[in-house]
């Protein structure tokens, strides 16, 4: 585990990370990554995530994650455009995304290094 684990709070969430999101960490990462490119409303988010990740977020799952992210102050709602409401990344959200992606990259680097270093299928 990373050095961050020593600072984990009661709910297991890393400060600035997405550890407390549990099974919502996946959708949360996708949403935050999408919003890192600029504010978007629900349908634009769905399409953007589908384009860059090949994952289609279902409406219920998308809004569960949006509600949690908003509750944690990682994203914020902007003024409605007609009946569609765009969301944008907050500074705390940007930090959380960076910490989470850094962690994921470390794991990915280890896995790739070990695969390249002589994994034997036999």
């Amino acid at each position, binding site marked *: 585990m990373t050095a961050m684990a020593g600072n984990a*709070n*009661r*709910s297991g969430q890393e400060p600035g990370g997405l550890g*407390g999101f549990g099974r919502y960490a996946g959708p949360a990462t996708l949403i935050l990554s999408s919003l890192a490119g600029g504010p978007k*409303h*629900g*349908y634009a988010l*769905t399409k953007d995530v589908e384009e860059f990740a090949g994952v289609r977020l*279902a*409406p*219920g*799952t*998308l*809004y*569960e994650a*949006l*509600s*949690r992210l908003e*509750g*944690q102050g990682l994203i914020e709602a902007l003024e*409605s455009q*007609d*009946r*569609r*409401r765009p969301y944008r990344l907050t500074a705390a959200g940007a930090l959380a995304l960076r910490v989470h992606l850094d962690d994921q990259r470390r794991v990915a680097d280890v896995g790739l290094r070990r695969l390249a270093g002589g994994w034997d299928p036999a």
Partner: protein
Amino acid sequence: MTAPADQAARTAARRAARLLRWYPASWRARYGDEFTELLLAEFAERPRSWRRAADVTRSGLLARLTGAGLTSHPLEPSRQARAGLATAAWSLAAFLIVGGAMWSQLTIGWEWAPPGPGAATVALVAMSAAAAFLAALALLAAIPLTWSVARALKNHPERPVRRSAWFALAGSGLVVAGGRHFANAWPGTGAHPSLPHGFLPAGVAAFSWAGTLSVSSYWAHPGALAAFPAAEIAWMAVSPVALVAAVAGVAGLVRRLELSPRVLRYEAWLASAAAAAMVVFLAGACCWVLAEGSGPGLFHAGAIDVASLAVMMLALSTAQRATSLARKSALGPRPR
């Protein structure tokens, strides 16, 4: 817009509105418009998808559970505590309605003839002790709540608080008045209401019988039910409504009142004690149904008693979950 396109838009709007109904009112008030827009865009792209419908259904039910304080979704701590306590009140009420019917059956049976040493005796002692403890806890819980209601009505007589207070008062008043009225018509043993003719004073047995008259297998036998006096059938229909109104009022007050952290901690502690008493009550009920359910007369357990056990187990697990999360929120994080 052409007529067919207009018709298609109306159909899509109706479908979106139907799906939105899975979510609680507070969620719809916050996200309803934008979520409807997303659904309409999804319908235009993919008109039919059972996965999407299942996802919205699951998410809506989860939002309802979250609103009831039953998930670990991080609500604001005071709101989580109040939502959990309100759900615990609902669960306790459901538990006591079916459990009370079972208990009254045993107390009345004892009025006619004591069951002798055995599971029914153990069950009735355990259930009675737990019921008395629960009644004491309810009184202790009502004291700060009543004070908060009086203060809220005096300072900020907001409509929802007034409505909840009125529901609680009218519902419980109707249950007590009706219960006492029909208890007088109880076909009992003729013992004086205040004298312990059986296990408990006859008046207690009669009141518990009248208060839970609606929990009856006679609903499944309309022919036999029709032989009952019309007033009694009317009471069987009205008393659950009055009980629901009373509990809805109390739960609404817990949700809406601005209770101090100290009161929330106190109420959460009482709710935990109530959950423990429910375990004792349920153990007594299981003891009777499983060990001595084939006893004579009123000590015979029927299908309705087995169904009651299932309802009580569900209510108990809900109360324990709600109480546990309410306590965590009310007490705050433990110092490390």
